[in-house]
């Protein structure tokens, strides 16, 4: 592999030098949140030390500087996902807020009693509950497309009906790692004139995303899973759809003119950005994108696939270990259960070895119900993880099995 050097990447992440219980940190909880490179940390302090003021308001120099950086970050996001226009990039708090925005704005305006919203069996709670709320408000019905035992969507049974008004699907499953055939899903939905929202929270850090090539109508993701700060995220929406949607929160910055009788709303994307945004967060997200593009998303994807393959082979060799989620197309997530050892115990014991994993239902309780497990242990990889760290994980799991006898 030319050019890709995990050692050099690791040196960019100060936190990877931490010791946990006296052991070097092995951070394998990247699907929950990734660590931050120095470039992101420094971008944050630089804003506050040199360039901070409120955006879109002041005539003074600092406000102009902050606005330029903030809008510059929007342009970086646009280029990163290859959106057609900056107007289509709405800054939000995260994926969850992005989905809620679509549910409450697009949903309430376009979805009524008896209409259907189609999701899949592998969704994160944040792509279930906003729709349930919408259904309660409107009388719409939530439909769930099934998956098979490997954790793959059953495309033949991905059925849109006459009443389907919106499809909302995870690009990549956080609990299973499954990469969904989203291009095909968009084609199927568009064939019936139904718009598609893709929950990109997990997919975005693991490979290049091109929203125009996917032709999705909405794409949502979070900064904190993309090596950026928490509290900032992105909703991409096609301008045509966003334009027609009503605002979902009112306040400053989202208006053009206000009287006590009525208000005129601002243009895109500001119509959906009421109040002072997370200015430093957006700018730091821009820094994260710069950092990732310096490495190259293709190189990251290729490296992580090798890590995943290596970890999967090693895990399969452990007796009593069952991998949950064996889709042919997968991102760098290894979810598993052990016979006789509960994930919570595995999590605590691995932590003793300095290894951070997630143990639980991963905010995907329906997925746990599907596999009839209360929880799984999930190791999720990022570009700074190494083959040695995978070895340590496997070794740790074997020791846990011994201890539990």
């Amino acid at each position, binding site marked *: 592999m030319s050019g890709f050097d995990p050692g050099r990447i690791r040196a960019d992440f100060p936190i990877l030098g931490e010791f946990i219980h006296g052991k070097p940190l092995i951070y394998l909880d990247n699907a929950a949140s990734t660590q931050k490179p120095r470039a992101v940390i420094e971008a944050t302090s630089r804003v506050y030390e040199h360039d901070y003021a409120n955006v879109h308001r002041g005539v003074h120099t600092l406000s102009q500087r902050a606005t330029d950086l903030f809008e510059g970050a929007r342009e970086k996001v646009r280029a990163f996902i290859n959106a057609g226009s900056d107007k289509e990039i709405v800054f939000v708090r995260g994926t969850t807020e992005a989905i809620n925005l679509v549910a409450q704005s697009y949903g309430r305006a376009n979805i009524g009693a008896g209409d259907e919203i189609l999701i899949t069996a592998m969704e994160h709670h944040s792509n279930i509950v906003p729709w349930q709320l919408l259904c309660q408000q409107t009388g719409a019905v939530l439909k769930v497309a099934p998956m098979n035992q490997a954790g793959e969507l059953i495309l033949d049974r991905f059925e849109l009906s006459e009443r389907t008004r919106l499809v909302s699907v995870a690009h990549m499953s956080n609990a299973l790692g499954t990469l969904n055939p989203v291009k095909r899903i968009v084609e199927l939905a568009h064939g019936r004139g139904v718009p598609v929202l893709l929950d990109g929270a997990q997919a975005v850090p693991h490979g290049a995303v091109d929203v125009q090539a996917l032709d999705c109508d909405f794409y949502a993701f979070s900064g904190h899973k993309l090596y950026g700060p928490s509290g900032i995220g992105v909703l991409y929406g096609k301008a045509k759809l966003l334009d027609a949607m009503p605002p979902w929160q009112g306040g400053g910055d989202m208006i053009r003119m206000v009287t006590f009788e009525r208000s005129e709303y601002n243009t895109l994307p500001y119509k959906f950005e009421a109040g002072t945004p997370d200015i430093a967060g957006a700018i730091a997200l821009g820094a994260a994108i710069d950092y990732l593009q310096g490495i190259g998303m293709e190189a990251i994807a290729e490296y992580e696939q090798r890590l995943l393959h290596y970890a999967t082979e090693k895990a399969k060799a452990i007796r009593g270990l069952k991998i949950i989620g064996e889709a042919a197309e997968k991102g760098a997530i290894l979810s598993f259960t052990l016979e006789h050892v*509960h994930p*919570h115990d595995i999590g*605590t*014991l691995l932590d003793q*070895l300095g290894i951070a994993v997630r143990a*639980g239902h991963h905010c995907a309780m329906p997925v746990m119900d599907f596999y009839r497990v*209360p929880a799984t242990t999930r190791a999720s990889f990022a570009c700074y993880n190494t083959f040695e760290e995978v070895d340590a994980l496997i070794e740790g799991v074997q*020791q846990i099995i011994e*201890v539990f006898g």
Partner: protein
Amino acid sequence: MFDEIRDLYQEVVFDHNRNPRNFRVMEDATRKIDGFNPLCGDRITLYIKVNDGIIEDVSFQGSGCAISTASASLMTEIVRGQSEEQAHEWFELFHRITTGQDERASFEELGKLAVLAGVRAYPARVKCATLPWHSLEAALKNEAESVSTE
């Protein structure tokens, strides 16, 4: 390898996890309650048979980690045959200790249950140990059918 955590994962815990006591459905229970820890998905169904203020029988079912299973198993051994009042006092004591409100180093009066005092050092796991006890407390108070650690 796991030396430091042996204060929590002691042999008693492994024993009760492997062979939980009173792990059964109770057909003639006078109260039944479902306990749930939304953080980790642990579920417990606790059955008690109370007669004249005395807990004549207690059992549980469910799936949980070693800490919650051992805690439930030990609890059933301790409170069987006790009065509701005594069981409530056990709950209070156990709760004080596991949440660090009682900072003594040793808990002789806890007997076997003392092994779970080690959970104090692992805040993320305290709820595992207390779930069965919260369920018991709710059952004693005859509260709604389900209890959550949240």
